[in-house]
């Protein structure tokens, strides 16, 4: 079970995906969100000690890890995943970043607005199947 969230520069969650879909109860989902939000502070610290956009594992929550990727525009991609998963994460984030750029370039997408694009979420799910 994996949860992906994209957090805007002003700390608003603009995108959320549970992979596989609907695999979490409401309570579990809230818990995951909490774990991801808690990890944001770690990201703020970790991003200054790394040259890469991909920050690897920034925080742990029970038997799960939170990995992060920070875009130059300070959008944060947060991924809550099983601790042993590691391969493919970097590639996953890089691909996700490519898709995200497409969204950011869309003239109808306003900053800070939730990403509602169906195509984007389909692509993300597809990507997750491939790399995670």
């Amino acid at each position, binding site marked *: 079970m994996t949860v992906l969230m994209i957090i805007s520069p002003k700390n608003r969650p603009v995108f959320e995906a549970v992979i596989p879909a609907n695999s979490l109860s409401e309570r579990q989902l809230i818990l995951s969100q909490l774990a991801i939000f808690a990890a944001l502070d770690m990201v703020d610290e970790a991003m200054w000690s790394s040259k890469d956009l991909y920050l690897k594992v920034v925080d742990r929550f029970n038997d799960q890890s939170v990995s992060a990727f920070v875009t130059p525009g300070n959008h944060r991609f947060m991924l809550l995943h099983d601790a042993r998963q590691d391969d493919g994460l970097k590639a996953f984030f890089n691909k996700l970043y490519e898709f995200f750029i*497409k*969204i950011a*370039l*869309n*003239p*109808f*997408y306003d900053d800070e607005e939730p990403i*509602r*694009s169906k*195509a984007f979420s389909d692509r993300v799910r597809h990507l997750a199947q491939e790399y995670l």
Partner: protein
Amino acid sequence: MSKVNLQRLGETVFQSSDRVSAELLALTYGSTVKQLLVDYEEPDEVNKQLDQMGYNIGIRLIEDVIANSKIYTISSFVDSAEIVAKVAFKMYLGVVANTVDWNSDKTEFSLQFDDNPLTEFTELPDRYSDLWYANILCGIIRGAYEMVQMKVECKYTKCVLRGDDTNEIRIVLREMLLERPPLDDE
């Protein structure tokens, strides 16, 4: 000129002309449409404005088409359609369109093209589902035709942004404008 020759001509003119990056064009056009939506609020009204803007471009652009392609004689509406599809589209958009669905009188056809550089990054949100995003093209075609003495009506009928499999513009010839002397010309 045959279709193949026209296609080759379009290619040559395209190669020899100055170009800007497709991203720049797409983003500039995108922000224009966005601003129109802010100003006019209704997608229908924006469609009209885009058409009018296109018209203003078209009546100027036709000179450039003719000068660069060196096609000085357009013998019929059928010929003109191929020129729009194979030469003009290639020159300004870098893509080639196809002319399909002619009616029996040869006064109506559809222009089909799969790629539209203007829509490269765009995804249409639900609240703008009535917007013909690239409607400016209709205006341009209408304006250009008018300058060569043909009054046409142009309408977007299919758009990839709306989930159609291709882009399609329907062009209907209304009348050939004849040069007449003014009524009270002594």
